[in-house]
């Protein structure tokens, strides 16, 4: 199906474990983003990528790692999950251009216990 998809939709993990959230888009958009959404904080940018093999930090990158070996995939890894990383994570993509909106996935609800 065309669009942007995230997996899993829900994940429960234990403190200290590594967990990877997946994001896949079918539009061949150059840009991809990871946001986290917590109550009272809106959406905060974790990492973004301008193209394959090009990534950069956002507002809250600590504790996260990203990679982008292929244009269509942008996985987000929590190397050692902490309770403060309990959140809803959204992936987004956008085309290159002056006035291009970002399209969001459905989100992954991650709970760290």
């Amino acid at each position, binding site marked *: 199906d065309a669009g942007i998809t995230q997996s899993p939709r829900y994940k429960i993990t234990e403190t200290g474990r590594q967990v990877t959230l997946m994001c896949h888009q079918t539009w061949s958009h150059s*840009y991809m*983003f990871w*946001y986290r959404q917590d109550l*009272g*904080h*809106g*959406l*905060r*940018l974790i990492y*973004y990528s*301008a193209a394959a093999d090009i990534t950069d930090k*956002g*507002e809250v990158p600590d504790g996260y790692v990203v990679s982008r070996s292929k244009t269509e995939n942008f996985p987000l890894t929590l190397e050692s999950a902490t309770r403060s990383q309990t959140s809803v994570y*959204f992936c*987004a993509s*956008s085309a*290159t251009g*002056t*006035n*291009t*909106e*970002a*399209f*969001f*996935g*459905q*989100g992954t609800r991650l709970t760290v216990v």
Partner: protein
Amino acid sequence: GESVGLHLPTLSVQEGDNSIINCAYSNSASDYFIWYKQESGKGPQFIIDIRSNMDKRQGQRVTVLLNKTVKHLSLQIAATQPGDSAVYFCAPRQAGFQKLVFGTGTRLLVSP
């Protein structure tokens, strides 16, 4: 860095009323602005956008107004419907950057 604020965290209206959601931004270099709607359990969805060389843009039942002098945006929804109930975010983007900065959001509650 950019900060984005909203004047009213929750807005309650009656069905059929017009709704106005406000947004202030701090970065005068922002040149493109997007409004998103987020329904419960879903990702944000694009509603309407506006470039900095415009002060008004209209869509279907929605109008966005931009006042660059005071760095303020508003989203007007005409004849608000229960299906409009959601959280609304404004997201400015700085010229030359693809990143969007989101505010806290405004929750719109529409009563039948």
